[in-house]
């Protein structure tokens, strides 16, 4: 188990290294304005050169790459240029992450509770009214772009219920709509996958045996189906927990939540290259870490994987 995890972790690190290098090189394709921004106009060529030299952008690319990794190893994510002049990226993120995490975790809990309940309800009523009813919900959320339905939620959510349109962290009521908005797709995804996994499990032979044992459907659902169906679901759970940190782009900007999601859009659209780079780094690392933890969690939950990957037993 430990050996498997270590090997898996090592592989994740290699992937991460390649992702970062690729992104780093891609970033060099961006216009150099990203390092002095709209000041370009006002600066003399000498001033511009000084800035680029100070940021080490005049070095050959491999030196830049080396410096980038050295900097990274020191835990330094660089300094923002345009978004907040001269402010370390770490500081900027430190202010954003709590909001994204709070909303992310809230939405995650909501989408797990509601999504799993919905999934179980669907699987139990497979082919019947409620299954179809919830399926339409899942279809709608999956098919229609968030930008469309979230807009209507904001529009009618605020005008009908009188909930505030702007986020204010001290006003609990202002948390409601963004939280609901953020969980909708998670609910749909959880429900859909849980239903699918449960239906898969329900068709398996061991369920027949469990029935033949004389277990009640309810006991089978709880002790066998749900438990087993939860394993594949658990695979992507760490990823979704980690992704809560990165926040929801739409919802954060719709309700003006000062989280990471909005930050990414702003950083890219305003060409703040060091900030973009740091964000891509974080997003990719979270993604890779999520996959890694998901696999480890799977291995913990599913004894078959544990042995296979260890090259153990049969």
């Amino acid at each position, binding site marked *: 188990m430990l050996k498997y995890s270590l090997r898996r972790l090592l592989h994740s690190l290699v*992937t991460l290294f*390649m*992702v970062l290098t690729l992104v780093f090189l891609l970033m060099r394709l961006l216009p150099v304005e990203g390092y002095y921004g709209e000041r370009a106009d006002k600066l003399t060529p000498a001033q511009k050169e000084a800035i680029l030299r100070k940021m080490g952008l005049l070095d050959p690319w491999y030196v830049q790459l080396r410096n980038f990794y050295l900097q990274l190893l020191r835990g330094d994510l660089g300094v923002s240029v345009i978004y907040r002049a001269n402010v370390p990226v770490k500081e900027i993120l430190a202010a954003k992450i709590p909001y994204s995490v709070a909303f992310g975790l809230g939405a995650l809990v909501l989408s797990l509770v509601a999504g799993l309940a919905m999934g179980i309800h669907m699987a139990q009523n497979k082919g019947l009214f409620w299954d179809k009813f919830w399926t339409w919900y899942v279809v709608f959320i999956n098919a229609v772009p968030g930008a469309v*339905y979230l807009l209507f939620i904001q529009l009618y959510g605020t005008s009908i219920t009188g909930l505030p349109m702007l986020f204010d962290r001290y006003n609990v009521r202002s948390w409601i709509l963004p939280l609901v908005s953020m969980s909708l797709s998670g609910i749909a995804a959880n429900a859909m996958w849980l239903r699918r996994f449960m239906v898969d499990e329900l068709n398996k032979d061991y369920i027949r045996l469990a029935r033949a044992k004389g277990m009640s459907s309810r006991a089978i659902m709880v002790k066998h189906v749900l438990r087993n169906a939860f394993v594949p679901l658990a695979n992507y759970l760490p990823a979704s927990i980690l992704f809560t940190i990165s926040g929801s*782009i739409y919802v954060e900007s719709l309700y003006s939540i000062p989280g990471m999601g909005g930050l990414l859009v702003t950083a890219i*659209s305003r060409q703040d290259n060091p900030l973009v780079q740091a964000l891509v780094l974080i*997003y*990719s690392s979270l993604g890779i870490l999520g996959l890694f933890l998901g696999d480890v969690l799977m291995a913990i939950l599913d004894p078959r994987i544990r042995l296979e990957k260890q090259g153990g037993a049969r």
Partner: protein
Amino acid sequence: MMTAKEKEVIQAIEEQELFTFAQYDPEAAERTGYSDYSYWRSTIRVFLRNKTAVFLLILMTSLVAFTFIQPYLPGQKDPIKIHIDPNTGLQLRNHPPDKEFWFGTNSIGQDLWARLWSGTRTSLLIAIIVGIWEIVFGTFVGAIWGYVRPLEAFLTEAYNVISNIPTTIILMLIAYILRPSFQTMIIAMCATGWLGMARFVRNQIVIIRDREYNLASRCLGTPTGRIIVKNLLPYLVSVMVMRVALSIPGTIGWEVFLTYIGLGLPLNIPSLGNLLNEGRRVMMAPALRYQLFFPAVVLSVITVSFYVLGNAFADASDPRNHF
């Protein structure tokens, strides 16, 4: 219990006659349990049984057809022409829907009805081009990945790397490095769209490449490429149809997203994303909400329809559902 008819038959035949040997017909023996199974026929049969899907298929076919013939119908307006109010000589701005302008006009007096169909055309065109690229390139990469063993490790690693950079970021960066335009939009979405397809194809190939009939083919000296084309791809055709159907709502979704964050098509090219964005700007004015409402409805109908169709087709093409 014998039916009246049976009684009649039996009475007509002499009892003795009944206990003589019948003519044995080997073909009739084969026929008893014969099933005339054909993959495509069964697929279509199962698909047609799904009433919702059939309805949506008809709806989408007519909608797509209408989208493309709409400009040639009589009495249609130019989607970018700015209409002038004959009384005031001013632009006919925010004119509510009526007989002349079925869906009203936008904030500079362009006909929303014409723009909506023009926008649908643009978005569908993007979606279809991206969808086709997704199949062609995705299948190509997936096939090589799954079948050419020496490249397997390399492609797996390449896939890992690319798929670990969030799609949002790749899309934004590309849309950003290039200037917003029709081509940029397509390039950006093509850059990431094929990943899912490639992995899907690869998985399918890995599952079936070692099946007996392929091993047999290889033993007989059939070249790899031919095995892929002849033995594996037919199996994947239904998968591809499904992926295209499902990629359409996906692509439209990304288009709306890119437009939302300001990296979409230029505003003077109507597209569903642009129309939605235009509508969003006036959504706070109840009288102008029709400008948000119409594009939102059309967009939802299209995306939901293709999504449902894709899934229905996926179900129908699964042999397990054919009995």
